[in-house]
Protein backbone atom coordinates (compact mmCIF):
# COMPACT_ATOMS: atom_id res chain seq x y z
CA UNK A 1 0.00 0.00 0.00
CA UNK A 2 2.60 2.55 1.06
CA UNK A 3 4.76 1.54 -1.90
CA UNK A 4 2.20 2.56 -4.51
CA UNK A 5 1.88 6.33 -4.73
CA UNK A 6 -1.32 8.08 -3.64
CA UNK A 7 -1.23 10.32 -6.70
CA UNK A 8 0.53 9.45 -9.90
CA UNK A 9 0.85 11.60 -13.02
CA UNK A 10 2.17 9.67 -15.97
CA UNK A 11 3.41 11.64 -18.98
CA UNK A 12 0.59 14.14 -18.56
CA UNK A 13 0.38 16.79 -21.26
CA UNK A 14 -2.05 19.65 -21.63
CA UNK A 15 -2.30 21.73 -24.76
CA UNK A 16 -5.08 24.28 -24.48
CA UNK A 17 -7.18 24.70 -27.63
CA UNK A 18 -5.88 27.55 -29.73
CA UNK A 19 -2.34 27.38 -28.34
CA UNK A 20 0.59 25.61 -29.93
CA UNK A 21 2.81 25.28 -26.85
CA UNK A 22 1.82 22.84 -24.14
CA UNK A 23 0.93 24.37 -20.75
CA UNK A 24 2.12 21.12 -19.18
CA UNK A 25 4.52 18.89 -21.04
CA UNK A 26 4.82 15.12 -20.39
CA UNK A 27 4.84 15.59 -16.66
CA UNK A 28 5.50 12.50 -14.59
CA UNK A 29 5.18 12.90 -10.84
CA UNK A 30 4.42 10.63 -7.92
CA UNK A 31 3.11 11.73 -4.56
CA UNK A 32 3.37 9.25 -1.71
CA UNK A 33 0.59 8.76 0.81
CA UNK A 34 0.76 11.28 3.65
CA UNK A 35 3.25 13.46 1.81
CA UNK A 36 3.10 17.21 1.20
CA UNK A 37 4.28 18.03 -2.30
CA UNK A 38 4.60 21.67 -3.29
CA UNK A 39 4.52 22.73 -6.94
CA UNK A 40 6.46 25.92 -7.39
CA UNK A 41 7.64 27.89 -10.39
CA UNK A 42 7.30 31.18 -12.24
CA UNK A 43 3.89 32.53 -13.24
CA UNK A 44 2.30 30.63 -16.12
CA UNK A 45 4.46 27.52 -15.73
CA UNK A 46 1.42 25.27 -15.44
CA UNK A 47 1.07 24.79 -11.69
CA UNK A 48 -2.65 25.48 -11.56
CA UNK A 49 -3.22 23.48 -14.74
CA UNK A 50 -1.40 20.49 -13.20
CA UNK A 51 -3.43 20.73 -10.00
CA UNK A 52 -6.74 21.04 -11.82
CA UNK A 53 -6.00 18.01 -13.94
CA UNK A 54 -5.88 15.91 -10.77
CA UNK A 55 -9.51 16.72 -9.90
CA UNK A 56 -10.47 16.96 -13.56
CA UNK A 57 -11.40 20.63 -13.61
CA UNK A 58 -9.11 20.44 -16.63
CA UNK A 59 -8.90 17.29 -18.74
CA UNK A 60 -5.39 16.33 -19.92
CA UNK A 61 -4.69 16.19 -23.63
CA UNK A 62 -2.74 12.97 -23.08
CA UNK A 63 -1.29 10.90 -20.28
CA UNK A 64 -2.95 9.30 -17.28
CA UNK A 65 -3.54 10.34 -13.69
CA UNK A 66 -4.32 7.91 -10.89
CA UNK A 67 -5.44 8.69 -7.37
CA UNK A 68 -5.25 5.86 -4.81
CA UNK A 69 -4.46 3.48 -7.63
CA UNK A 70 -7.57 4.25 -9.70
CA UNK A 71 -7.62 6.20 -12.95
CA UNK A 72 -9.37 9.52 -12.26
CA UNK A 73 -11.56 9.02 -15.32
CA UNK A 74 -12.96 5.78 -13.91
CA UNK A 75 -15.74 7.58 -12.02
CA UNK A 76 -17.87 10.62 -13.01
CA UNK A 77 -15.97 13.86 -12.32
CA UNK A 78 -18.34 15.20 -9.58
CA UNK A 79 -18.01 11.92 -7.69
CA UNK A 80 -14.21 12.03 -7.95
CA UNK A 81 -14.14 15.63 -6.72
CA UNK A 82 -16.16 14.83 -3.60
CA UNK A 83 -13.33 12.53 -2.56
CA UNK A 84 -10.64 15.18 -3.04
CA UNK A 85 -10.38 18.30 -0.88
CA UNK A 86 -9.93 21.51 -2.86
CA UNK A 87 -8.82 24.93 -1.62
CA UNK A 88 -8.25 27.92 -3.89
CA UNK A 89 -6.62 31.27 -3.29
CA UNK A 90 -9.86 33.26 -3.34
CA UNK A 91 -11.34 30.50 -1.16
CA UNK A 92 -14.73 30.74 -2.86
CA UNK A 93 -16.86 30.43 0.26
CA UNK A 94 -20.57 30.51 -0.57
CA UNK A 95 -21.72 34.01 0.47
CA UNK A 96 -25.34 32.87 0.94
CA UNK A 97 -24.48 30.10 3.38
CA UNK A 98 -23.43 30.29 6.98
CA UNK A 99 -20.02 29.04 8.06
CA UNK A 100 -21.59 25.80 9.30
CA UNK A 101 -23.39 25.27 5.99
CA UNK A 102 -20.26 26.07 4.03
CA UNK A 103 -18.36 23.44 5.97
CA UNK A 104 -21.20 20.96 5.44
CA UNK A 105 -20.99 21.28 1.65
CA UNK A 106 -19.40 17.98 0.69
CA UNK A 107 -21.08 15.87 3.40
CA UNK A 108 -24.42 17.15 2.07
CA UNK A 109 -23.42 16.33 -1.49
CA UNK A 110 -22.55 12.86 -0.25
CA UNK A 111 -25.94 12.57 1.42
CA UNK A 112 -24.79 12.13 5.01
CA UNK A 113 -27.40 11.95 7.77
CA UNK A 114 -28.12 15.22 9.54
CA UNK A 115 -26.75 14.33 12.99
CA UNK A 116 -23.53 13.07 11.46
CA UNK A 117 -23.13 16.33 9.53
CA UNK A 118 -23.78 18.43 12.65
CA UNK A 119 -21.23 16.47 14.64
CA UNK A 120 -18.69 16.81 11.85
CA UNK A 121 -19.20 20.60 11.66
CA UNK A 122 -18.43 20.90 15.38
CA UNK A 123 -15.35 18.76 14.96
CA UNK A 124 -14.02 20.86 12.09
CA UNK A 125 -14.73 24.20 13.75
CA UNK A 126 -12.62 22.91 16.61
CA UNK A 127 -9.94 21.47 14.33
CA UNK A 128 -9.62 24.68 12.33
CA UNK A 129 -9.38 26.66 15.55
CA UNK A 130 -12.48 28.71 14.77
CA UNK A 131 -14.71 30.34 17.35
CA UNK A 132 -17.90 28.22 17.68
CA UNK A 133 -19.83 31.51 17.70
CA UNK A 134 -18.95 31.80 14.00
CA UNK A 135 -21.10 28.83 13.12
CA UNK A 136 -24.09 30.94 12.12
CA UNK A 137 -22.25 33.87 10.61
CA UNK A 138 -21.93 34.56 6.93
CA UNK A 139 -18.55 34.65 5.13
CA UNK A 140 -18.76 38.42 4.64
CA UNK A 141 -18.62 38.78 8.42
CA UNK A 142 -15.22 37.05 8.73
CA UNK A 143 -11.65 38.28 8.40
CA UNK A 144 -9.44 37.02 5.60
CA UNK A 145 -7.58 34.63 7.88
CA UNK A 146 -10.80 33.26 9.33
CA UNK A 147 -12.23 32.70 5.87
CA UNK A 148 -9.08 30.84 4.92
CA UNK A 149 -9.51 28.52 7.91
CA UNK A 150 -13.13 27.92 6.95
CA UNK A 151 -11.96 27.10 3.42
CA UNK A 152 -9.58 24.46 4.76
CA UNK A 153 -12.21 23.11 7.16
CA UNK A 154 -14.67 22.84 4.28
CA UNK A 155 -12.14 20.97 2.16
CA UNK A 156 -11.51 18.52 5.02
CA UNK A 157 -15.19 18.02 5.85
CA UNK A 158 -15.68 14.60 4.28
CA UNK A 159 -12.23 13.49 5.44
CA UNK A 160 -10.77 13.11 1.93
CA UNK A 161 -7.41 11.34 1.73
CA UNK A 162 -6.14 13.91 -0.76
CA UNK A 163 -6.08 17.69 -0.51
CA UNK A 164 -5.34 20.02 -3.44
CA UNK A 165 -4.47 23.60 -2.54
CA UNK A 166 -3.86 26.36 -5.09
CA UNK A 167 -2.00 29.27 -3.49
CA UNK A 168 -4.11 28.83 -0.36
CA UNK A 169 -2.38 31.62 1.54
CA UNK A 170 -1.80 33.96 -1.38
CA UNK A 171 -4.50 36.43 -0.42
CA UNK A 172 -3.59 37.10 3.23
CA UNK A 173 -0.93 39.37 4.67
CA UNK A 174 2.50 37.90 5.56
CA UNK A 175 1.89 37.66 9.30
CA UNK A 176 -1.41 35.82 8.93
CA UNK A 177 0.15 33.71 6.18
CA UNK A 178 2.96 32.55 8.46
CA UNK A 179 0.45 31.59 11.12
CA UNK A 180 -1.79 29.74 8.66
CA UNK A 181 1.27 27.86 7.35
CA UNK A 182 2.13 26.78 10.88
CA UNK A 183 -1.45 25.70 11.42
CA UNK A 184 -1.40 23.66 8.24
CA UNK A 185 1.78 21.89 9.33
CA UNK A 186 0.20 21.27 12.70
CA UNK A 187 -2.95 19.91 11.09
CA UNK A 188 -0.93 17.75 8.73
CA UNK A 189 1.06 16.27 11.61
CA UNK A 190 -2.23 15.03 13.03
CA UNK A 191 -4.15 14.13 9.86
CA UNK A 192 -1.46 12.80 7.50
CA UNK A 193 -3.27 13.76 4.32
CA UNK A 194 -1.69 13.56 0.92
CA UNK A 195 -1.38 17.21 -0.06
CA UNK A 196 -0.45 18.86 -3.34
CA UNK A 197 0.01 22.58 -2.79
CA UNK A 198 0.73 25.21 -5.42
CA UNK A 199 2.63 28.39 -4.63
CA UNK A 200 4.93 30.85 -6.34
CA UNK A 201 6.66 31.57 -3.05
CA UNK A 202 9.90 29.58 -2.69
CA UNK A 203 10.02 30.14 1.07
CA UNK A 204 6.54 28.73 1.44
CA UNK A 205 7.52 25.72 -0.67
CA UNK A 206 10.59 25.09 1.51
CA UNK A 207 8.63 25.49 4.70
CA UNK A 208 5.68 23.29 3.81
CA UNK A 209 6.92 20.70 1.35
CA UNK A 210 8.18 17.21 2.16
CA UNK A 211 9.18 17.36 -1.48
CA UNK A 212 9.20 20.32 -3.83
CA UNK A 213 8.58 20.11 -7.57
CA UNK A 214 10.11 23.02 -9.44
CA UNK A 215 8.40 23.66 -12.75
CA UNK A 216 9.61 25.77 -15.63
CA UNK A 217 7.47 27.56 -18.21
CA UNK A 218 5.73 25.01 -20.42
CA UNK A 219 5.15 22.70 -17.50
CA UNK A 220 8.63 21.19 -17.57
CA UNK A 221 9.72 19.53 -14.32
CA UNK A 222 13.20 20.85 -13.48
CA UNK A 223 13.76 19.21 -10.11
CA UNK A 224 11.72 17.11 -7.72
CA UNK A 225 13.33 16.53 -4.35
CA UNK A 226 13.12 17.35 -0.65
CA UNK A 227 13.77 21.06 0.04
CA UNK A 228 17.11 20.47 1.75
CA UNK A 229 18.41 18.59 -1.26
CA UNK A 230 17.17 21.21 -3.69
CA UNK A 231 18.86 23.96 -1.69
CA UNK A 232 22.08 21.97 -1.28
CA UNK A 233 22.35 20.87 -4.90
CA UNK A 234 20.10 22.65 -7.39
CA UNK A 235 19.68 20.51 -10.52
CA UNK A 236 20.50 23.28 -12.97
CA UNK A 237 20.96 26.98 -13.54
CA UNK A 238 17.19 27.55 -13.74
CA UNK A 239 16.59 26.06 -10.32
CA UNK A 240 19.55 27.93 -8.88
CA UNK A 241 18.27 31.19 -10.29
CA UNK A 242 14.76 30.49 -9.09
CA UNK A 243 15.91 29.79 -5.54
CA UNK A 244 17.65 33.15 -5.46
CA UNK A 245 21.00 34.22 -4.12
CA UNK A 246 20.13 33.57 -0.48
CA UNK A 247 20.08 29.80 -0.72
CA UNK A 248 22.30 29.51 2.36
CA UNK A 249 19.89 31.51 4.47
CA UNK A 250 16.95 29.54 3.08
CA UNK A 251 18.68 26.33 4.15
CA UNK A 252 18.82 27.69 7.68
CA UNK A 253 15.05 27.65 7.78
CA UNK A 254 15.15 23.87 7.38
CA UNK A 255 17.39 23.25 10.40
CA UNK A 256 15.82 23.28 13.84
CA UNK A 257 17.62 24.89 16.75
CA UNK A 258 17.43 21.55 18.60
CA UNK A 259 19.63 19.98 15.92
CA UNK A 260 22.31 22.64 16.09
CA UNK A 261 25.31 22.64 18.40
CA UNK A 262 24.79 25.10 21.22
CA UNK A 263 27.46 26.71 23.36
CA UNK A 264 27.09 27.05 27.11
CA UNK A 265 27.95 30.77 27.10
CA UNK A 266 29.11 33.03 29.95
CA UNK A 267 26.69 31.76 32.55
CA UNK A 268 27.64 32.20 36.18
CA UNK A 269 25.94 31.29 39.40
CA UNK A 270 24.29 34.11 41.31
CA UNK A 271 26.71 33.33 44.14
CA UNK A 272 29.77 33.78 41.91
CA UNK A 273 32.27 36.56 42.52
CA UNK A 274 32.75 39.51 40.21
CA UNK A 275 36.09 38.03 39.19
CA UNK A 276 34.48 34.74 38.13
CA UNK A 277 31.92 36.67 36.08
CA UNK A 278 34.72 38.68 34.48
CA UNK A 279 36.56 35.48 33.58
CA UNK A 280 33.47 33.97 31.97
CA UNK A 281 32.95 37.11 29.88
CA UNK A 282 36.58 37.19 28.84
CA UNK A 283 36.45 33.52 27.83
CA UNK A 284 33.59 34.20 25.42
CA UNK A 285 34.75 37.65 24.38
CA UNK A 286 31.45 39.17 25.54
CA UNK A 287 30.64 42.11 27.78
CA UNK A 288 27.70 40.52 29.56
CA UNK A 289 26.97 37.34 31.46
CA UNK A 290 23.94 35.18 32.28
CA UNK A 291 22.89 34.67 35.88
CA UNK A 292 21.80 31.26 37.14
CA UNK A 293 19.68 31.03 40.21
CA UNK A 294 18.38 27.77 41.66
CA UNK A 295 19.36 25.89 38.50
CA UNK A 296 17.49 28.29 36.18
CA UNK A 297 19.04 31.00 34.06
CA UNK A 298 16.96 33.97 35.11
CA UNK A 299 18.46 36.76 33.02
CA UNK A 300 21.61 38.64 32.26
CA UNK A 301 23.70 41.57 33.45
CA UNK A 302 26.20 43.80 31.66
CA UNK A 303 29.87 43.75 32.58
CA UNK A 304 29.61 47.47 33.40
CA UNK A 305 27.07 46.63 36.11
CA UNK A 306 29.98 45.27 38.15
CA UNK A 307 32.07 48.45 37.78
CA UNK A 308 31.04 49.93 41.12
CA UNK A 309 32.40 46.87 42.94
CA UNK A 310 29.06 45.05 42.96
CA UNK A 311 28.88 41.25 43.04
CA UNK A 312 26.59 39.26 40.70
CA UNK A 313 24.36 38.49 43.69
CA UNK A 314 23.63 42.23 44.11
CA UNK A 315 22.39 42.67 40.55
CA UNK A 316 18.84 42.53 39.31
CA UNK A 317 19.02 40.18 36.28
CA UNK A 318 17.57 41.67 33.09
CA UNK A 319 15.25 39.41 31.10
CA UNK A 320 16.41 38.20 27.68
CA UNK A 321 14.69 40.25 24.99
CA UNK A 322 14.65 37.40 22.50
CA UNK A 323 14.74 33.76 23.39
CA UNK A 324 14.52 30.83 20.99
CA UNK A 325 12.78 27.51 21.48
CA UNK A 326 14.10 24.14 20.25
CA UNK A 327 11.50 24.10 17.44
CA UNK A 328 12.55 27.45 15.99
CA UNK A 329 14.70 27.34 12.89
CA UNK A 330 18.26 28.54 12.52
CA UNK A 331 16.85 31.25 10.30
CA UNK A 332 14.93 32.56 13.31
CA UNK A 333 18.14 32.20 15.32
CA UNK A 334 20.08 34.22 12.76
CA UNK A 335 17.47 36.92 12.93
CA UNK A 336 17.62 36.94 16.72
CA UNK A 337 21.42 37.11 16.71
CA UNK A 338 21.78 39.94 14.27
CA UNK A 339 19.08 42.04 15.89
CA UNK A 340 20.24 41.62 19.48
CA UNK A 341 22.80 43.88 21.14
CA UNK A 342 24.54 40.90 22.66
CA UNK A 343 25.02 39.18 19.25
CA UNK A 344 23.92 35.85 20.67
CA UNK A 345 20.54 34.14 20.94
CA UNK A 346 19.81 32.20 24.14
CA UNK A 347 17.79 29.00 23.71
CA UNK A 348 15.24 27.93 26.28
CA UNK A 349 13.05 24.86 26.45
CA UNK A 350 10.30 26.34 28.55
CA UNK A 351 12.18 27.66 31.61
CA UNK A 352 15.17 25.40 31.08
CA UNK A 353 18.25 27.05 29.58
CA UNK A 354 19.76 24.94 26.81
CA UNK A 355 22.62 27.11 25.65
CA UNK A 356 23.14 29.85 23.12
CA UNK A 357 23.79 30.36 19.44
CA UNK A 358 26.22 32.79 17.89
CA UNK A 359 26.90 33.68 14.25
CA UNK A 360 29.79 31.19 14.24
CA UNK A 361 27.66 28.25 15.33
CA UNK A 362 24.94 29.14 12.82
CA UNK A 363 27.24 29.47 9.83
CA UNK A 364 29.02 26.25 10.79
CA UNK A 365 25.69 24.45 10.34
CA UNK A 366 25.36 25.51 6.68
CA UNK A 367 28.96 25.04 5.74
CA UNK A 368 29.26 21.48 7.03
Amino acid sequence: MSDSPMIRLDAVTKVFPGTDHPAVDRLTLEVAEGEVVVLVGPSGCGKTTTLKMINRLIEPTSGTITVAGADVTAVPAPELRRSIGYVIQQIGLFPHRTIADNIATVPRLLGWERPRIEARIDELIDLADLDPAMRDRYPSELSGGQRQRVGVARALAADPPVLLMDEPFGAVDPIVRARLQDELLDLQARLRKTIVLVTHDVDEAIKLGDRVAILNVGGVLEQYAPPAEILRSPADAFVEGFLGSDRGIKRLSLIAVRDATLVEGPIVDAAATAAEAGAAMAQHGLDWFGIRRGGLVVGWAAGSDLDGGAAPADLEPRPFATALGPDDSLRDALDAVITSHSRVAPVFDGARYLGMLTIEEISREIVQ
Partner: protein
Amino acid sequence: MITAQAAGPFFRWDWVGRNLGAIWDRVVEHLTLTAIAIGIGLVIAMGLSLVALRWRRTYAPITWVTGILYTIPSLALFALLVPFTGLSTLTAEIGLVSYTLLILIRNIVAGIDGVSPEVREAAVGMGYTRRRLFFEIELPLAMPVIVAGIRIAAVTVIGLVTVTSIIGQGGLGFFILRGLNSFFWTQIIVGVALSVLLAVIIDLLLAGGERALTPWARRRGAG
Protein backbone atom coordinates in the same frame (compact mmCIF):
# COMPACT_ATOMS: atom_id res chain seq x y z
CA MET B 1 -78.32 60.14 -15.82
CA ILE B 2 -74.92 61.24 -17.11
CA THR B 3 -75.57 64.91 -16.49
CA ALA B 4 -76.99 64.15 -13.07
CA GLN B 5 -73.73 62.46 -12.09
CA ALA B 6 -71.57 65.16 -13.60
CA ALA B 7 -73.44 67.81 -11.64
CA GLY B 8 -72.77 66.11 -8.29
CA PRO B 9 -69.78 66.70 -5.93
CA PHE B 10 -66.29 66.02 -7.33
CA PHE B 11 -65.71 62.88 -5.23
CA ARG B 12 -68.74 60.92 -4.09
CA TRP B 13 -68.00 58.81 -1.02
CA ASP B 14 -71.56 57.50 -1.14
CA TRP B 15 -70.79 55.89 -4.51
CA VAL B 16 -67.73 54.22 -3.00
CA GLY B 17 -69.81 53.02 -0.07
CA ARG B 18 -72.47 51.52 -2.32
CA ASN B 19 -69.90 49.82 -4.59
CA LEU B 20 -67.47 48.35 -2.09
CA GLY B 21 -68.25 44.82 -3.28
CA ALA B 22 -67.67 45.69 -6.95
CA ILE B 23 -64.42 47.55 -6.09
CA TRP B 24 -63.11 44.57 -4.15
CA ASP B 25 -63.94 42.24 -7.06
CA ARG B 26 -61.94 44.47 -9.41
CA VAL B 27 -59.00 44.61 -7.01
CA VAL B 28 -58.99 40.81 -6.95
CA GLU B 29 -59.24 40.68 -10.73
CA HIS B 30 -56.39 43.17 -11.03
CA LEU B 31 -54.17 41.14 -8.75
CA THR B 32 -55.10 37.87 -10.45
CA LEU B 33 -54.26 39.21 -13.91
CA THR B 34 -50.95 40.54 -12.53
CA ALA B 35 -50.04 37.35 -10.68
CA ILE B 36 -50.79 35.13 -13.68
CA ALA B 37 -48.74 37.40 -15.96
CA ILE B 38 -45.75 37.45 -13.59
CA GLY B 39 -46.02 33.69 -12.94
CA ILE B 40 -46.15 32.72 -16.60
CA GLY B 41 -43.61 35.42 -17.46
CA LEU B 42 -41.19 33.97 -14.90
CA VAL B 43 -41.55 30.43 -16.22
CA ILE B 44 -40.98 31.51 -19.83
CA ALA B 45 -38.18 33.91 -18.87
CA MET B 46 -36.46 31.22 -16.81
CA GLY B 47 -36.61 28.80 -19.73
CA LEU B 48 -35.26 31.35 -22.20
CA SER B 49 -32.59 32.46 -19.71
CA LEU B 50 -31.40 28.88 -19.33
CA VAL B 51 -31.13 28.63 -23.09
CA ALA B 52 -29.26 31.95 -23.23
CA LEU B 53 -26.89 30.93 -20.41
CA ARG B 54 -26.21 27.52 -21.93
CA TRP B 55 -25.79 28.73 -25.50
CA ARG B 56 -24.40 32.22 -25.21
CA ARG B 57 -25.03 33.08 -28.85
CA THR B 58 -28.79 32.85 -28.36
CA TYR B 59 -28.77 35.68 -25.81
CA ALA B 60 -28.63 38.49 -28.38
CA PRO B 61 -31.57 37.16 -30.50
CA ILE B 62 -33.62 36.44 -27.36
CA THR B 63 -33.21 39.98 -26.03
CA TRP B 64 -33.83 41.33 -29.51
CA VAL B 65 -37.20 39.59 -29.88
CA THR B 66 -38.35 40.27 -26.32
CA GLY B 67 -37.08 43.83 -26.75
CA ILE B 68 -39.41 44.32 -29.70
CA LEU B 69 -42.32 42.90 -27.69
CA TYR B 70 -41.43 45.34 -24.94
CA THR B 71 -41.46 48.37 -27.22
CA ILE B 72 -44.76 47.71 -29.04
CA PRO B 73 -47.30 50.18 -27.61
CA SER B 74 -49.61 48.23 -25.32
CA LEU B 75 -52.80 49.50 -26.91
CA ALA B 76 -51.57 48.40 -30.33
CA LEU B 77 -50.54 44.96 -29.05
CA PHE B 78 -53.95 44.23 -27.57
CA ALA B 79 -55.65 45.48 -30.72
CA LEU B 80 -53.47 43.22 -32.86
CA LEU B 81 -54.29 40.18 -30.74
CA VAL B 82 -58.08 40.60 -30.62
CA PRO B 83 -58.70 39.14 -34.13
CA PHE B 84 -56.96 35.93 -32.99
CA THR B 85 -57.88 35.48 -29.36
CA GLY B 86 -60.93 37.74 -28.96
CA LEU B 87 -61.86 39.97 -26.03
CA SER B 88 -60.57 37.40 -23.58
CA THR B 89 -58.36 36.96 -20.53
CA LEU B 90 -56.03 35.06 -22.84
CA THR B 91 -55.55 38.15 -24.98
CA ALA B 92 -54.82 40.22 -21.89
CA GLU B 93 -52.34 37.71 -20.52
CA ILE B 94 -50.47 37.28 -23.79
CA GLY B 95 -49.93 41.01 -23.89
CA LEU B 96 -49.02 41.34 -20.20
CA VAL B 97 -46.62 38.39 -20.24
CA SER B 98 -44.85 39.69 -23.31
CA TYR B 99 -44.03 42.91 -21.45
CA THR B 100 -42.40 41.06 -18.54
CA LEU B 101 -40.03 38.91 -20.57
CA LEU B 102 -37.27 41.38 -21.43
CA ILE B 103 -37.01 42.69 -17.87
CA LEU B 104 -37.04 39.25 -16.30
CA ILE B 105 -34.61 37.61 -18.73
CA ARG B 106 -32.13 40.46 -18.44
CA ASN B 107 -32.17 40.28 -14.66
CA ILE B 108 -31.98 36.49 -14.48
CA VAL B 109 -29.02 36.35 -16.86
CA ALA B 110 -27.28 39.31 -15.18
CA GLY B 111 -27.88 37.76 -11.77
CA ILE B 112 -26.40 34.40 -12.72
CA ASP B 113 -23.50 36.07 -14.56
CA GLY B 114 -22.83 38.07 -11.42
CA VAL B 115 -21.98 34.96 -9.39
CA SER B 116 -18.26 35.19 -8.81
CA PRO B 117 -16.08 32.73 -10.76
CA GLU B 118 -14.29 31.64 -7.59
CA VAL B 119 -17.56 30.58 -5.99
CA ARG B 120 -18.40 28.60 -9.09
CA GLU B 121 -14.94 27.05 -9.27
CA ALA B 122 -15.03 26.06 -5.61
CA ALA B 123 -18.48 24.52 -6.04
CA VAL B 124 -17.57 22.54 -9.12
CA GLY B 125 -14.23 21.56 -7.58
CA MET B 126 -16.01 20.13 -4.55
CA GLY B 127 -18.29 17.98 -6.66
CA TYR B 128 -21.42 19.96 -7.53
CA THR B 129 -23.17 18.72 -10.63
CA ARG B 130 -24.25 21.34 -13.15
CA ARG B 131 -27.87 21.05 -12.09
CA ARG B 132 -27.26 21.35 -8.35
CA LEU B 133 -24.82 24.19 -8.98
CA PHE B 134 -27.62 26.10 -10.68
CA PHE B 135 -30.34 25.51 -8.12
CA GLU B 136 -28.29 25.56 -4.91
CA ILE B 137 -25.60 28.12 -5.66
CA GLU B 138 -26.22 30.25 -8.73
CA LEU B 139 -29.95 30.83 -8.37
CA PRO B 140 -29.88 31.80 -4.66
CA LEU B 141 -26.94 34.13 -5.25
CA ALA B 142 -28.71 35.73 -8.23
CA MET B 143 -31.88 36.20 -6.19
CA PRO B 144 -31.42 39.90 -5.28
CA VAL B 145 -31.00 40.81 -8.96
CA ILE B 146 -33.85 38.55 -10.06
CA VAL B 147 -36.21 39.97 -7.44
CA ALA B 148 -35.25 43.47 -8.57
CA GLY B 149 -36.44 42.41 -12.05
CA ILE B 150 -39.66 40.95 -10.67
CA ARG B 151 -40.37 44.21 -8.86
CA ILE B 152 -40.01 46.26 -12.03
CA ALA B 153 -42.06 43.73 -14.00
CA ALA B 154 -44.82 43.66 -11.36
CA VAL B 155 -45.14 47.44 -11.24
CA THR B 156 -45.17 47.58 -15.05
CA VAL B 157 -47.85 44.90 -15.28
CA ILE B 158 -50.06 46.51 -12.61
CA GLY B 159 -50.04 49.65 -14.72
CA LEU B 160 -50.72 47.76 -17.95
CA VAL B 161 -53.62 45.77 -16.53
CA THR B 162 -55.66 48.99 -16.53
CA VAL B 163 -55.15 49.22 -20.30
CA THR B 164 -56.69 45.77 -20.79
CA SER B 165 -60.01 47.35 -19.83
CA ILE B 166 -60.41 48.23 -23.50
CA ILE B 167 -60.70 44.53 -24.30
CA GLY B 168 -63.19 43.94 -21.50
CA GLN B 169 -60.68 42.93 -18.80
CA GLY B 170 -58.81 45.50 -16.81
CA GLY B 171 -59.33 45.04 -13.07
CA LEU B 172 -59.37 48.57 -11.67
CA GLY B 173 -58.98 49.87 -15.21
CA PHE B 174 -62.68 49.07 -15.60
CA PHE B 175 -63.53 52.04 -13.34
CA ILE B 176 -61.13 54.34 -15.16
CA LEU B 177 -62.63 53.49 -18.56
CA ARG B 178 -66.21 53.76 -17.27
CA GLY B 179 -65.46 57.00 -15.50
CA LEU B 180 -63.85 58.50 -18.62
CA ASN B 181 -66.88 57.53 -20.74
CA SER B 182 -69.29 59.14 -18.30
CA PHE B 183 -67.15 62.03 -16.95
CA PHE B 184 -67.68 60.47 -13.52
CA TRP B 185 -64.60 61.56 -11.59
CA THR B 186 -65.21 59.38 -8.57
CA GLN B 187 -64.78 56.22 -10.64
CA ILE B 188 -61.63 57.53 -12.34
CA ILE B 189 -60.06 58.50 -9.05
CA VAL B 190 -60.92 55.19 -7.41
CA GLY B 191 -59.43 53.29 -10.38
CA VAL B 192 -56.24 55.34 -10.55
CA ALA B 193 -55.65 55.64 -6.81
CA LEU B 194 -56.20 51.99 -6.10
CA SER B 195 -53.99 50.78 -8.96
CA VAL B 196 -51.18 53.06 -7.78
CA LEU B 197 -51.70 51.82 -4.24
CA LEU B 198 -51.57 48.21 -5.45
CA ALA B 199 -48.30 48.86 -7.26
CA VAL B 200 -46.75 50.38 -4.15
CA ILE B 201 -47.96 47.60 -1.87
CA ILE B 202 -46.82 44.80 -4.19
CA ASP B 203 -43.42 46.48 -4.61
CA LEU B 204 -42.98 46.76 -0.84
CA LEU B 205 -44.07 43.16 -0.33
CA LEU B 206 -41.57 41.93 -2.90
CA ALA B 207 -38.82 44.03 -1.35
CA GLY B 208 -39.68 42.56 2.05
CA GLY B 209 -39.75 39.07 0.59
CA GLU B 210 -36.32 39.59 -0.88
CA ARG B 211 -34.90 40.73 2.44
CA ALA B 212 -36.33 37.67 4.12
CA LEU B 213 -34.96 35.35 1.43
CA THR B 214 -31.46 36.80 1.37
CA PRO B 215 -30.34 37.46 4.94
CA TRP B 216 -26.72 37.08 3.81
CA ALA B 217 -26.96 40.07 1.48
CA ARG B 218 -27.91 42.37 4.35
CA ARG B 219 -25.20 41.57 6.85
CA ARG B 220 -22.01 43.11 5.61
CA GLY B 221 -19.44 43.05 8.33
CA ALA B 222 -15.66 43.07 8.45
CA GLY B 223 -14.34 42.79 4.94
